[in-house]
């Protein structure tokens, strides 16, 4: 596409099927301690692959 570049992001619908293992980091525990954000967290399943 000439004027639009779609940046690769995780397929959320697919993640509903394969996700939910619950192994990821919880809350703001070990970095900010004052503002929860998930965008910068990692999926533990993907990290191990």
């Amino acid at each position, binding site marked *: 596409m000439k004027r639009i570049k779609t*940046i*690769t992001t*995780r397929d959320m619908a697919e993640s509903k099927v394969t996700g939910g293992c619950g192994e990821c980091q919880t809350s703001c525990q070990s970095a900010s301690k004052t503002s*929860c954000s998930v965008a910068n967290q990692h*999926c533990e399943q993907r990290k191990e692959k």
Partner: protein
Amino acid sequence: MVIDAASGAVHSVDEVAYDAIQKLDEEVTGAGAGAAFSDSGLIDRIASEISRKHGISEDDAKETLGDIAELHEQGLLWSEDPFEQAADEIKIRQSVLKAICLHVAHGCNMDCEYCFAGKGDYSGKSGIMSAEVGKRALDYLVEHSGTRRHLEVDFFGGEPLINWDVCKEIVAYGRELEKKHNKIFNFTLTTNGVLIDDDVIDFTNREMGNVVLSMDGRRDTHDRMRHSKTGGGTYDMIMDNFRALVDSRLENAERSSEYYMRGTYTAYNKDFAADVIAMADLGFRETSIEPVVSDPDVPYALHEEDLPKLYEEYEKLALEMLAREERGEGFSFYHYTVDLTGGPCIYKRVAGCGVATEYLAVTPTGDLYPCHQFVGDDNMIVGNIYDGITHPETVGIFSSGNNIYTRDDCKNCWARLYCAGGCAANNYHSNGDINKVYRFGCKLHRKRIECALMMAAAREK
């Protein structure tokens, strides 16, 4: 840049495409975007308007509109939200205890003006955690962690290093539990740095993941709020210690990025980008800075009218980081480290913070609170490590009906899948209700996410 809120898709667009999407968006009604695309009169009108405004041919404009229609068909623009119906199920699946914040010391060797913990002693409830309480807290975590394998334990305070021997004893006990129960503990530490010595450096390098080092950036900024017990600034007391710890981490590939220089900005340093850059200039490559959350009447409080300046600073920081990356001098900022492809699944993004369910704070005497920011508030105690949850009604406030679809502010927010609903403690402390969003914080968080996505788009170019 255009973001499709429901799918989380991010598109880097030029002005023509941006305009076209905006015009289409104004026409999308309850009938959905599909209806707009099948209205050939509407598409012709928009193509003509764009063609005139941007000085391009109508064919070119129509090609762009065709591309936009294709993205809609792929579920990447004006997508329906398929997750709202499943939100409650999604929340329930995330309900084992995964992490605890161990308040090993309610006391501090510093006297910071903005401390949310009542200068370390949590409203006069000072105390030092015994090894027995700490070990029982780990047992409690293991007992309530179900099949979850990775468990997180942060040593927090006050200042945890004033109770360092107990921290080490708790870690040793954790390593025994790992073998017995097939668990993996990730221990972390949050410290002001005063008591960092060779033993702390050696032990944390061997045994601890992330180490959060509290430092506010420029010397003047830091010393203005982070005081010693005798009243002076603490910059000179901590910098060599932080330098030694980080240098030592850099020698270990596994640990080299497992630290954060973590600052707080206030009304005194609204030009906080300079503080983050000061951290980077000192050679600290993992940085983080958070806005102070305070009583609105204190002189250092941040207010709504500060937002334009704060937005400007986030943008300035993002652009400076990109410029440094190009020069091979890049560094990381916590909120801009967005993992677009390897980030969390939809379960995590809907459920958000695990406060009171996946995560608990443990006081020196073993009381349990929903998170570290509620410690000291008698209305928020949920139980203790010996008797378990004794106030299920308080846990219930956090666990039931608390997700990004239960709050209108979140449900209609474009950033919902990148934020996951924000901080319950900030909500509570600003509005007295964990379900009423802290709008000032939301505005800043949206700006941070916008900058992070802008940086991702710039890198792709």
